[in-house]
């Protein structure tokens, strides 16, 4: 069923004709997000600029039972903003204002289309710090970060997006506007609806404002790269650092395949002669930083590190982190289709999981690059494939099924930071169990009785 001219007309009346796109040449570029091998043409794209416009658009959609897929910059990695056939794509990138930076309460109020890096920079400009840093932070929007509850490289010490959301303005499917949360550090009045909407993947409401928590900027930091001849030695180093009760802000790891791709792109001088690389960063009080960095270096060497290189300044540290953030995309240098997942396990099970991924790839005759946030157990096994090769795609799917089952068996999760979306939908029931699935379904039904918000995502 195509979108009727009446619906399109009403949408144009709300947001203006130039903010409703229906030409095929405009629909095609919105048919996908950052996820590989998933696309679907929408019915139209609507750009909203105010909460009132969002409310009016949702009302039109709800009255006509038209599906709505909310989208920011379209960098998601679970297919969460891949359109439904003939849906309205509600794009929030034109809602891009930073409304307030409150230095007395250490908060920032923003519209959903503000990019993560803009939040980071606006905080830094007044000496404050917004830690969540997903790989796509240069373009990902804060609305998308909240909807997906995005993580990043600093999750280990600073947590994830959820830990920095103090309040949300939400438009419900029938157009009603709801505020949840506030600037109070403590607030136990009623259910925490705010937490329900964080990570709800566009299925419960549309985020139109976000009140973020900021923290003081750490006074010092040290960044280093350690290289290893074997993966296990890197994993053991991570376990030893955690066991020594050091919580670095970053403990990232790259395997050989990933190192080569990243270096090919970023040219930051990563060593190419090792099997595994750890990017480690500690921040905080200068004295504590110096002590922790020395201890981390010592532990790396104790585990047989081939080399430990300390970044000489902030610029080098930043270029190393940027290089690491490019890992996912850089792997595409090797194959046309790159499918990554984010199976996550308790840190104590990490070495086991890394070995399991390698064995599974071998068993299914697949090329894999693995990297990820070793410090928080969040791995990114990435299969290098070609979506035109049906047989290989089938094997990729099988391999992921086994990896997810193993993650669950080890007490982990099917997704640490990318969300369920379409990519992990079929694995959710097994992971969540009957009781959780029932409660989630009932919650969704209560908030979106007509099922217009991102239908078919997360679960049916």
């Amino acid at each position, binding site marked *: 069923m195509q979108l009727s001219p009446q619906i399109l007309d009403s949408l144009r009346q709300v947001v203006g004709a130039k903010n409703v796109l229906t030409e095929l*040449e405009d629909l*095609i570029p919105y048919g996908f997000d950052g996820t590989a091998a998933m696309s679907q043409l929408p019915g139209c794209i609507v750009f909203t600029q105010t909460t009132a416009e969002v409310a009016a658009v949702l009302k039109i959609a709800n009255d006509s039972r038209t599906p709505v897929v909310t989208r920011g910059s379209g960098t998601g990695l679970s297919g969460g903003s891949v359109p439904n056939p003939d849906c309205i794509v509600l794009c929030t990138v034109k809602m891009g204002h930073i409304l307030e930076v409150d230095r007395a309460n250490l908060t920032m109020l923003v519209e959903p289309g503000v990019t993560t*890096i803009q939040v980071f920079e606006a905080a830094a400009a007044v000496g404050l710090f917004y830690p969540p840093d997903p790989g796509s932070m240069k373009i990902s929007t804060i609305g998308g970060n909240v909807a997906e509850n995005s993580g990043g490289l600093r999750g280990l010490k600073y947590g994830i997006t959820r830990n920095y959301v103090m309040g949300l303005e939400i438009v419900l499917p029938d157009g009603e506007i709801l505020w949840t949360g506030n600037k109070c550090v403590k607030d136990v009045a009623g259910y925490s609806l705010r937490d329900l909407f964080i990570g709800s993947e566009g299925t419960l409401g549309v985020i139109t404002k976000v009140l973020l928590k900021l923290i003081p900027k750490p006074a010092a930091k040290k960044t280093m790269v350690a290289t290893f001849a074997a993966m296990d030695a890197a994993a053991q180093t991570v376990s030893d650092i955690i066991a020594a009760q050091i919580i670095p802000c970053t403990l990232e790891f790259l395997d050989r395949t990933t190192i080569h791709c990243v270096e*090919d792109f970023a040219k930051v001088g990563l060593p190419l002669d090792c099997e595994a690389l750890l990017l480690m960063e500690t921040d905080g009080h200068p004295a504590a930083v110096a002590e922790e960095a020395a201890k981390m270096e010592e532990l790396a060497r104790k585990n047989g590190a081939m080399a430990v290189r300390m970044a000489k300044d902030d610029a080098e540290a930043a270029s190393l982190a940027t290089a690491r953030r490019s890992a996912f*995309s850089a*792997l*595409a240098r090797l194959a046309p289709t790159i499918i990554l997942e984010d199976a996550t396990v308790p840190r104590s099970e990490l070495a086991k999981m890394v070995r399991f991924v390698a064995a599974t790839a071998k068993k299914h005759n697949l090329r894999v690059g693995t990297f990820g946030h070793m410090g928080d157990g969040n791995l990114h096994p990435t299969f290098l494939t070609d979506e035109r090769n049906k047989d290989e795609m089938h094997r990729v799917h099988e391999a992921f099924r086994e990896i997810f089952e193993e993650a669950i068996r080890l007490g982990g999760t099917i997704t640490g930071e990318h969300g369920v979306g379409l990519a992990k939908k079929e694995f959710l029931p097994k992971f969540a169990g009957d009781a959780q699935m029932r409660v989630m379904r009932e919650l969704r039904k209560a908030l979106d009785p007509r099922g217009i918000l991102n239908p078919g995502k997360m679960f049916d």
Partner: protein
Amino acid sequence: MHCGMCLPTCPTYDATKLERNSPRGRIALMRSIADGQLEATKTFADEMYFCLGCLACVTACPAGVNYAELFEHARAEAEASGVLSSPKRNFIRRFTIGWLFMDLRRLRLFGRALWLWQALGLQWLVRKSGVLKLMPARLREMEAMTPTVQSKLSHQLIAPVTPAAGQKKYRVAMLTGCAQDLIFSDVNRDTVEVLARNGCEVVTPHAQSCCGSLHAHNGEWTLAQQLARRSIDQFPPEQFDAIITNAGGCGSHLKHYAKLLAGDAAYESRAHAWDAKVKDIHEWLAHIGIESPKATAPPQTVTYHESCHLCHGQKVTTQPRALLKSIPGVKLVELPEASWCCGSAGVYNITQPEMADDLLRRKVGHIKTTGANVVATGNPGCLLQVQNGCAREGMAVRVAHPVTLLAEAYRAADRN
């Protein structure tokens, strides 16, 4: 791969926030055409010409997607489909790309005529007379952008062979370009001087060809191939240590003749040799190491604007800055968003005036914040565009090629 890492670096996406106007969106459209889901429509063709071709996305792309090639093919596809065809457009293209820029003697003749118009004061007269007010606003704006043609062109300033000053260490060819030859023949002369000063014998034949960059970027592959063959014939790569260009836009094209001539049995292997020899002037000078000018020049605050095809197309970024820093008296101030397109982009400021103007305003705004009295940049299009932008704002800023500043420093030292 469609991760979106290119989006924040794309000037057109930044302006409109529409996916269609982004590298990722444009590639999606190209792929749809390849897959048969979309025809090469007028909307598609317009989109390919809305793209600046600045290649910032290529620098940003971790996956190494070769947008430059995709984009040139897409424009060729757009031209082949004929969807943009109109009598006026066809005439302009046939006259400029198909005739004027195919033979530099014609271009020089045209340049001469324009020079006469300017030198005899006719341009001044017409501008003063108010006749221009009768023209449509767009034509008036374009008239104001008309570059001033130099009184002497490259071949009148430069000998066919300039001997190395002192010991000859290298033999290089120097491409004088087309627009560069008409408007910045002095930059060509400065380039030859600097090369000779640093041990290079410089070969600069009087009759040269356009490199074909204009043609390739505008969907005219066959003409571009024709010009590439002509250049290779004129400058057999095995006879030179390097083939030098001082125009970022040309260099970015000149280094890819092998792709252009792939499958051409007579030229393919020579084109590979050619590609390896082509060097941007900054790149070459950094490679051979230059004599530092003696400290005599007055102090000047310089900021550096990166030509897109020099930084994104050729990855030449550190060398021009190092060259500028080597000049005594130069204080180099970093320009915010130095590698963001100024809107010149070949003929973009003529074909897409509004977007080009927005970009120019943004660039000039940044230049103001640096407090520099000189803007250095290594491409004729950028030189003209930034000159126009600064003049329009009444800024007392000089816009110059880095090599010109270096040549002046040598001359100043010699005088003392």
